[in-house]
Protein backbone atom coordinates (compact mmCIF):
# COMPACT_ATOMS: atom_id res chain seq x y z
CA UNK A 1 0.00 0.00 0.00
CA UNK A 2 1.55 3.27 -1.09
CA UNK A 3 0.40 6.37 0.77
CA UNK A 4 1.34 9.94 -0.12
CA UNK A 5 4.35 11.23 1.79
CA UNK A 6 2.33 13.54 4.04
CA UNK A 7 0.04 10.69 5.10
CA UNK A 8 3.03 8.46 5.82
CA UNK A 9 4.53 11.19 7.99
CA UNK A 10 1.22 11.63 9.78
CA UNK A 11 1.02 7.88 10.46
CA UNK A 12 4.64 7.82 11.63
CA UNK A 13 4.06 10.82 13.91
CA UNK A 14 0.98 9.16 15.38
CA UNK A 15 2.97 5.94 15.89
CA UNK A 16 5.82 7.73 17.67
CA UNK A 17 3.38 9.68 19.86
CA UNK A 18 1.39 6.54 20.77
CA UNK A 19 4.48 4.39 21.40
CA UNK A 20 6.36 6.96 23.48
CA UNK A 21 3.11 7.78 25.28
CA UNK A 22 2.68 4.08 26.10
CA UNK A 23 6.23 3.99 27.44
CA UNK A 24 5.51 7.04 29.60
CA UNK A 25 2.25 5.56 30.85
CA UNK A 26 4.05 2.37 31.87
CA UNK A 27 6.63 4.47 33.69
CA UNK A 28 3.79 6.27 35.52
CA UNK A 29 2.33 2.88 36.46
CA UNK A 30 5.69 1.80 37.79
CA UNK A 31 5.75 4.91 39.97
CA UNK A 32 2.20 4.16 41.15
CA UNK A 33 3.15 0.57 41.91
CA UNK A 34 6.16 1.75 43.92
CA UNK A 35 3.93 4.07 45.93
CA UNK A 36 1.50 1.21 46.53
CA UNK A 37 4.29 -0.98 47.84
CA UNK A 38 6.06 1.58 50.01
CA UNK A 39 3.53 4.15 51.22
CA UNK A 40 2.76 3.96 54.95
CA UNK A 41 -0.65 5.59 54.44
CA UNK A 42 -3.42 2.96 54.02
CA UNK A 43 -5.67 5.31 52.05
CA UNK A 44 -2.89 6.08 49.61
CA UNK A 45 -2.16 2.37 49.13
CA UNK A 46 -5.81 1.53 48.52
CA UNK A 47 -6.18 4.58 46.25
CA UNK A 48 -3.25 3.45 44.12
CA UNK A 49 -4.75 0.02 43.38
CA UNK A 50 -8.20 1.51 42.87
CA UNK A 51 -6.85 4.02 40.35
CA UNK A 52 -4.86 1.48 38.37
CA UNK A 53 -7.84 -0.19 36.71
CA UNK A 54 -9.50 2.92 35.19
CA UNK A 55 -6.09 4.39 34.38
CA UNK A 56 -5.19 1.23 32.48
CA UNK A 57 -8.40 1.39 30.44
CA UNK A 58 -8.04 5.13 29.81
CA UNK A 59 -4.31 5.31 29.08
CA UNK A 60 -2.46 2.00 28.70
CA UNK A 61 -4.97 0.10 26.53
CA UNK A 62 -5.76 2.96 24.08
CA UNK A 63 -2.07 3.81 23.69
CA UNK A 64 -1.13 0.15 23.15
CA UNK A 65 -3.80 -0.34 20.49
CA UNK A 66 -2.97 3.01 18.87
CA UNK A 67 0.71 2.05 18.77
CA UNK A 68 -0.15 -1.29 17.15
CA UNK A 69 -2.52 0.16 14.54
CA UNK A 70 -0.34 3.13 13.61
CA UNK A 71 2.69 0.83 13.46
CA UNK A 72 0.90 -1.47 11.04
CA UNK A 73 -0.15 1.49 8.87
CA UNK A 74 3.34 3.01 8.97
CA UNK A 75 5.15 -0.18 8.02
CA UNK A 76 2.71 -1.33 5.37
CA UNK A 77 2.63 2.09 3.73
CA UNK A 78 6.40 2.47 3.60
CA UNK A 79 9.26 0.72 1.88
CA UNK A 80 10.15 -1.03 5.14
CA UNK A 81 7.20 -3.40 4.92
CA UNK A 82 5.95 -5.55 7.78
CA UNK A 83 7.81 -8.82 7.29
CA UNK A 84 10.85 -7.72 5.27
CA UNK A 85 13.16 -6.44 8.01
CA UNK A 86 13.87 -8.21 11.29
CA UNK A 87 13.67 -5.01 13.33
CA UNK A 88 10.14 -4.30 12.09
CA UNK A 89 9.13 -7.92 12.70
CA UNK A 90 10.53 -7.87 16.25
CA UNK A 91 8.75 -4.60 16.98
CA UNK A 92 5.50 -6.13 15.76
CA UNK A 93 5.97 -9.22 17.93
CA UNK A 94 6.87 -7.13 20.99
CA UNK A 95 3.83 -4.91 20.42
CA UNK A 96 1.46 -7.85 19.92
CA UNK A 97 2.80 -9.70 22.97
CA UNK A 98 2.72 -6.63 25.23
CA UNK A 99 -0.79 -5.68 24.11
CA UNK A 100 -2.06 -9.23 24.67
CA UNK A 101 -0.52 -9.42 28.15
CA UNK A 102 -1.94 -5.97 28.97
CA UNK A 103 -5.46 -6.96 27.91
CA UNK A 104 -5.24 -10.12 30.02
CA UNK A 105 -3.78 -8.12 32.90
CA UNK A 106 -6.79 -5.77 33.02
CA UNK A 107 -8.56 -8.61 34.84
CA UNK A 108 -5.79 -8.52 37.42
CA UNK A 109 -6.27 -4.76 37.79
CA UNK A 110 -9.96 -5.42 38.40
CA UNK A 111 -9.21 -8.06 41.03
CA UNK A 112 -6.69 -5.83 42.81
CA UNK A 113 -9.16 -2.91 42.79
CA UNK A 114 -11.82 -5.16 44.34
CA UNK A 115 -9.46 -6.09 47.16
CA UNK A 116 -8.43 -2.46 47.67
CA UNK A 117 -12.07 -1.36 47.82
CA UNK A 118 -12.77 -3.86 50.59
CA UNK A 119 -12.16 -1.88 53.76
CA UNK A 120 -12.01 -5.06 55.81
CA UNK A 121 -9.18 -6.49 53.72
CA UNK A 122 -5.80 -6.29 55.40
CA UNK A 123 -3.32 -3.84 53.89
CA UNK A 124 -0.82 -6.65 53.30
CA UNK A 125 -3.41 -8.23 50.99
CA UNK A 126 -3.92 -4.94 49.16
CA UNK A 127 -0.21 -4.35 48.57
CA UNK A 128 0.90 -6.32 45.56
CA UNK A 129 4.28 -6.53 43.81
CA UNK A 130 2.70 -7.82 40.59
CA UNK A 131 2.06 -4.41 38.93
CA UNK A 132 5.63 -3.32 39.62
CA UNK A 133 7.01 -6.56 38.17
CA UNK A 134 4.82 -6.33 35.08
CA UNK A 135 5.62 -2.63 34.63
CA UNK A 136 9.36 -3.35 34.75
CA UNK A 137 8.99 -6.15 32.18
CA UNK A 138 6.81 -3.97 29.96
CA UNK A 139 9.27 -1.11 30.27
CA UNK A 140 12.09 -3.41 29.17
CA UNK A 141 10.14 -4.71 26.18
CA UNK A 142 9.06 -1.23 25.08
CA UNK A 143 12.60 0.10 25.47
CA UNK A 144 13.86 -2.69 23.21
CA UNK A 145 11.19 -1.75 20.67
CA UNK A 146 12.21 1.92 20.89
CA UNK A 147 15.88 1.10 20.41
CA UNK A 148 15.00 -1.06 17.39
CA UNK A 149 12.95 1.79 15.91
CA UNK A 150 15.73 4.33 16.34
CA UNK A 151 18.75 2.23 15.33
CA UNK A 152 16.99 0.10 12.69
CA UNK A 153 19.61 -2.66 12.88
CA UNK A 154 20.36 -4.40 9.64
CA UNK A 155 18.93 -7.75 8.71
CA UNK A 156 16.49 -8.90 6.10
CA UNK A 157 14.06 -11.72 6.74
CA UNK A 158 13.98 -14.58 4.23
CA UNK A 159 10.99 -12.84 2.63
CA UNK A 160 12.93 -9.58 2.44
CA UNK A 161 15.89 -11.31 0.82
CA UNK A 162 13.76 -12.48 -2.08
CA UNK A 163 13.88 -10.19 -5.09
CA UNK A 164 11.05 -7.66 -5.16
CA UNK A 165 9.71 -9.05 -8.44
CA UNK A 166 9.52 -12.55 -6.93
CA UNK A 167 7.64 -11.20 -3.89
CA UNK A 168 5.07 -9.55 -6.15
CA UNK A 169 4.54 -12.68 -8.20
CA UNK A 170 4.27 -15.05 -5.29
CA UNK A 171 0.70 -16.06 -4.45
CA UNK A 172 -0.76 -14.90 -1.13
CA UNK A 173 -0.55 -17.46 1.70
Amino acid at each position, binding site marked *: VVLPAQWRKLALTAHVVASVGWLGAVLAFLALAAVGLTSPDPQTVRGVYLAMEPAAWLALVPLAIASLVTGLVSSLSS*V*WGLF*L*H*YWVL*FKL*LINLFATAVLL*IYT*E*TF*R*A*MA*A*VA*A*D*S*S*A*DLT*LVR*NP*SPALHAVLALGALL*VATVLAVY*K*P*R*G*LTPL*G*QRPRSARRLSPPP
Partner: protein
Amino acid sequence: MITYRHRVSINGTLPLEDQMSRTSGTPNSEGPTGGTPTWVKVLALIAIVVVVAFIVSLLAGVQHGPALHEPSSGTVCTVAAA
Protein backbone atom coordinates in the same frame (compact mmCIF):
# COMPACT_ATOMS: atom_id res chain seq x y z
CA MET B 1 29.09 -14.96 0.98
CA ILE B 2 28.63 -11.20 1.30
CA THR B 3 27.78 -9.92 4.73
CA TYR B 4 27.50 -6.45 6.17
CA ARG B 5 30.77 -6.98 7.95
CA HIS B 6 32.48 -6.73 4.60
CA ARG B 7 30.87 -3.38 3.97
CA VAL B 8 32.41 -1.77 7.05
CA SER B 9 35.50 0.20 6.15
CA ILE B 10 38.86 -0.09 7.85
CA ASN B 11 38.14 2.58 10.47
CA GLY B 12 34.99 0.75 11.50
CA THR B 13 32.47 3.14 9.96
CA LEU B 14 29.84 2.34 7.40
CA PRO B 15 30.30 3.46 3.82
CA LEU B 16 28.84 6.90 3.13
CA GLU B 17 25.88 5.64 1.13
CA ASP B 18 24.95 3.34 4.01
CA GLN B 19 25.21 6.16 6.53
CA MET B 20 23.04 8.38 4.36
CA SER B 21 20.53 5.60 3.92
CA ARG B 22 20.33 5.06 7.68
CA THR B 23 19.99 8.72 8.61
CA SER B 24 17.30 9.29 6.01
CA GLY B 25 15.22 6.51 7.55
CA THR B 26 14.96 4.46 4.40
CA PRO B 27 16.22 0.96 3.84
CA ASN B 28 19.31 0.46 1.79
CA SER B 29 18.65 -1.30 -1.46
CA GLU B 30 21.56 -3.60 -0.77
CA GLY B 31 20.31 -5.93 1.88
CA PRO B 32 22.24 -8.72 3.55
CA THR B 33 22.32 -11.87 1.58
CA GLY B 34 24.05 -13.82 4.32
CA GLY B 35 22.68 -15.59 7.37
CA THR B 36 20.65 -14.29 10.27
CA PRO B 37 22.28 -11.30 12.05
CA THR B 38 23.66 -11.87 15.53
CA TRP B 39 21.32 -9.39 17.19
CA VAL B 40 18.33 -11.32 15.80
CA LYS B 41 19.68 -14.56 17.29
CA VAL B 42 20.24 -12.86 20.66
CA LEU B 43 16.74 -11.37 20.80
CA ALA B 44 15.18 -14.64 19.62
CA LEU B 45 17.11 -16.51 22.33
CA ILE B 46 15.89 -14.08 25.00
CA ALA B 47 12.30 -14.48 23.75
CA ILE B 48 12.58 -18.28 23.83
CA VAL B 49 14.04 -18.18 27.37
CA VAL B 50 11.16 -15.97 28.56
CA VAL B 51 8.53 -18.24 27.01
CA VAL B 52 10.17 -21.41 28.34
CA ALA B 53 10.51 -19.87 31.83
CA PHE B 54 6.83 -18.95 31.78
CA ILE B 55 5.80 -22.47 30.68
CA VAL B 56 8.05 -24.07 33.30
CA SER B 57 6.57 -21.83 36.00
CA LEU B 58 3.08 -22.85 34.91
CA LEU B 59 4.02 -26.53 34.99
CA ALA B 60 5.62 -26.04 38.41
CA GLY B 61 2.28 -24.82 39.74
CA VAL B 62 3.09 -21.13 40.10
CA GLN B 63 -0.18 -19.22 39.85
CA HIS B 64 -0.65 -16.46 37.30
CA GLY B 65 -3.47 -14.12 36.48
CA PRO B 66 -6.16 -12.39 38.53
CA ALA B 67 -6.93 -15.40 40.72
CA LEU B 68 -3.54 -14.94 42.32
CA HIS B 69 -4.52 -11.47 43.52
CA GLU B 70 -7.91 -12.27 44.94
CA PRO B 71 -8.25 -12.92 48.65
CA SER B 72 -8.30 -16.51 49.79
CA SER B 73 -11.62 -18.16 50.67
CA GLY B 74 -11.17 -17.41 54.34
CA THR B 75 -10.95 -13.67 53.77
CA VAL B 76 -14.04 -11.53 53.97
CA CYS B 77 -14.54 -9.58 50.75
CA THR B 78 -17.64 -7.47 50.81
CA VAL B 79 -16.98 -5.92 47.41
CA ALA B 80 -16.90 -9.27 45.68
CA ALA B 81 -20.17 -10.25 47.33
CA ALA B 82 -21.87 -6.99 46.41
